[in-house]
């Protein structure tokens, strides 16, 4: 548990954008992880994916770390942003754009607008 905690803390510190998910960004293994990774991929955000299915201690550890019971979990600059529903809402409202901009994370604004247009 402590090991997983340390490992998670180091991972979210070392990378600007980290998605803890079931499966990988190229091969997600859960619909919710797929949706979260899909949004980031489509928006051209460079992110580090951590497959919690590959490590049981991480699968539980990430829930303890954030006090959040579900996966996926998105972190930007070490801060927990939310799960699948929050990522979706923030994408549609434009809040995710603001968050990325504030943190100096590059993304494709036109692609983000396209998602919003498609869901308007």
């Amino acid at each position, binding site marked *: 548990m402590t090991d997983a905690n340390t490992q998670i803390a180091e991972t979210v510190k070392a990378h600007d954008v980290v998605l803890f998910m079931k499966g990988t960004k190229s091969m997600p293994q859960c619909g*919710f992880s797929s949706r979260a990774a899909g949004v980031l991929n489509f928006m051209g955000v460079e992110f580090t994916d951590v497959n919690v299915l590959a490590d049981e201690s991480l*699968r539980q550890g990430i*829930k303890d770390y954030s006090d*959040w*019971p*579900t996966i996926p979990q998105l972190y930007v600059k070490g801060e927990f942003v939310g799960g*699948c*529903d*929050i990522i979706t809402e923030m994408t549609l409202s434009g809040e995710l754009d603001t968050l990325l901009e504030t943190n100096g994370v590059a993304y494709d604004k036109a692609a983000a607008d396209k998602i919003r247009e498609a869901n308007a």
Partner: protein
Amino acid sequence: MAILATDIEEMIREAFPSAQISVQGDDGAHFSAEVIDESFRGKNRVQQQRAVYAALKGKMDGSAGEVHALALTTRAPD
């Protein structure tokens, strides 16, 4: 025993007695819930949804959890 949407609604109701709550889902594992409560005002989504998850008392947790998926929408009343 599979969990019902009404069970989830009851658990949320206990924690948020005056909230507007609607829970959908009838397969015993996948649900969607909307909770509108005054106590959410001024809190961000993570804080709001953490409070709802807390009301579900571990039912969401890991492989032992009864609820596999709960699509959650939370907000303060308009």
